[in-house]
């Protein structure tokens, strides 16, 4: 995947879908509409649950087949209107630790039934960069358009920025780009001797709530999570990252080894690392609690902690290819076992 026009359009389309954590549910789910449009010809079942997850299933046709889940966080940081009345300003509560200072001055949209409606500009009472935070942040809008109530979700205009042949900058906390990986895999992979669950997880940034819910729902035998890995021990542009742990749990050797084998098998150079940051939200912990074997594949992202992530689209393509190869190799192994 390099930044040709087609890929750029795909990414822009994905990021035009506003998915602030908590704004999606079973009935109003723009991600569901998107996934359904993309994958209805490739999957047997696509549904949304009450917490907002979208799950696409490709069945093997066999009874009691094993289940492999691929998970990408579908949400993004944003705001919810917390007080529209008491101070003459629309006070906001940040969801998913948005970077207030970086978002100050940006245009804001209200998310309503999956559509975004322009509402004004995000501003702060404080001009001191260090003090721009939840207590000082608000949405400035014209009174006549002030059709916003407490509980309405607000997002900033914060699209991806493309540069060079393969560079992309994303909102720092957005791992949503991996939704494209899931879609690409589902379109290419076909069917296997096991069921494949493509999980577009909601409310990840609120503490992996979607993953928790999906882990119960699916009861997967194997789960592979896609995530951005902070640059440091890994580098952008040096291939996908296979992490054998995160700050909350250790991946299964079986899955980590399988991913390595898959990457080597298709000639992709990869980076192996242990992600150890305790404050990272763990995508795998809810699955480990359910007794699922887990793995992590991702891409290295620089500047993740300061509000924007620079990534390399070649790494993204490599991560999807390695995960896809894992499915193929797993299928071959189960064929041999039979």
């Amino acid at each position, binding site marked *: 995947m390099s930044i040709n026009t087609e890929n750029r359009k795909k990414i822009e389309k994905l990021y035009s879908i506003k998915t602030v*954590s*908590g*704004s999606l*549910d*079973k*009935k*109003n789910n723009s991600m569901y509409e998107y996934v359904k449009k993309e994958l209805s010809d490739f999957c047997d079942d696509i549904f949304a*649950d*009450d*917490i*907002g*997850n979208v799950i696409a299933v490709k069945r093997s046709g066999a009874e009691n087949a094993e289940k492999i889940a691929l998970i990408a966080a579908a949400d993004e940081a944003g705001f*919810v209107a*917390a*007080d529209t009345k*008491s*101070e003459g300003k629309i*006070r906001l*509560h940040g969801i998913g630790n948005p970077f207030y200072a970086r978002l100050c001055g940006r245009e804001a949209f209200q998310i309503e039934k999956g559509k975004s409606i322009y509402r004004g500009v995000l501003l702060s009472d404080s001009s001191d960069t260090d003090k721009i935070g939840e*207590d000082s942040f608000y949405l400035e809008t014209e009174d006549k358009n002030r059709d916003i109530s*407490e*509980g309405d979700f607000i997002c900033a205009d914060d699209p991806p920025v493309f540069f060079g042949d393969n560079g992309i900058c994303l909102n720092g906390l957005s791992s949503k780009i991996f939704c494209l990986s899931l879609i690409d895999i589902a379109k290419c992979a076909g069917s296997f001797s096991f069921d494949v669950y493509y999980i577009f997880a909601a*409310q990840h940034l*609120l503490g992996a*709530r979607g993953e*928790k*819910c999906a882990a*119960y*729902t699916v009861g997967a035998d194997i789960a592979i999570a896609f995530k951005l890995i902070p640059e440091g021990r890994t580098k952008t542009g040096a291939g996908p990252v296979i992490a054998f742990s995160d700050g909350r749990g250790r991946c299964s050797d079986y899955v980590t080894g399988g991913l390595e084998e898959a990457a080597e098998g298709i000639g992709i150079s990869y980076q192996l690392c242990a992600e150890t940051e305790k404050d990272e939200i763990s995508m795998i912990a809810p699955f480990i609690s359910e007794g699922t074997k887990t793995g992590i594949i991702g891409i290295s992202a620089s500047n993740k902690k300061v509000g924007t992530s620079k990534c390399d689209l070649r790494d993204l393509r490599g991560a999807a290819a390695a995960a896809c190869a894992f499915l193929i190799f797993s299928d071959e192994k189960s064929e041999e076992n039979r």
Partner: protein
Amino acid sequence: MNYELLKDLCQKSGVSGYESEVLKFIEERIRQYSDGLEYDRAGNLIAYKKGRLGKCENNKRILYSCHADEVGFVITHIEDDGRLLFEQIGMSVLVYTGRQVLIGKKKIPGIIAVKPVHLLEKEESEKIPEHKSLFIDIGAKSREEAEELGVYADYAVFDSGYEELGSGMIKAKALDDRAGCAMLISLMERGIEHDGYFAFCVGEELGLRGSQTVAERIKPDLCINLECTTAGDVYGVTGSQRTCLVGGGAVVPFMDGSAVYSADLYRKARAIAEKKGIICQTKTKIAGGTDAGSYTRIAGGCRTLGLAVPTRYIHSACSIAKKSDIDEVEKLLFAVSDEAAGL
């Protein structure tokens, strides 16, 4: 609201992990209104009640939930001189220093003791004491004497009465969430339109522990969770930082620290309140967590609505709430319950 019932509930002990006294009281109270009653393995009390119209058409499982536990203490060690060391559940050292407590079923009185002001160095008197410097004094002279009273590993609650004060206000310990318990009991007494489960959960203050089991056991499609929530209207804070106001009516939150409530249920509950002339407000600051966190995260998720009483000084020796707010929450609960099948 039956305030005699609320008073009785607040005076029962039920520190997280030691809820049997209050649950026994609730069990006796609701037995005659239940069509099924059980304690699950976690200790939650779950009742099933048939509605006047039977099951929902689509077999929707409706759950009404509150928590029966309260903040408090556990005695962890007895010193040779009879002092009791303890751990707190759900509080800051700010709110329990110097307070009277009652330990265990025998309700042995004790004081959470600190050095008297006369003995404090100037520096000490300006600092908040550290938890590790505190102990409970039950007047025992030795470890043996304290052990004979059976206090080791027992619980302690605040010794704090239920009283009416000011203009239609009440103060009591454990309003969080005995107010919710009282409302669910009242709903069971009044009756419901469609079959429903009633959960009086344990361990909420220890991290929503009981409700996780309830969520797995009942697998509700719709949950209405009753709570008390932080009213910050007296701390010199203004605007949205106040969270919600005592006297502002029933609180219908759209989100808290543990859950994003179902947006359509939030709107429908507000609409029902408007239609029925029930005064309500929402939380203007996201603070605190509730059992809704467990219900929203079960397999497939669960559409969850929160209803709460704005309460000052929750998680302390005595909270203050306004009767009119409690009445509004109860009215809204009844009204929402009547329409639950269609929600």
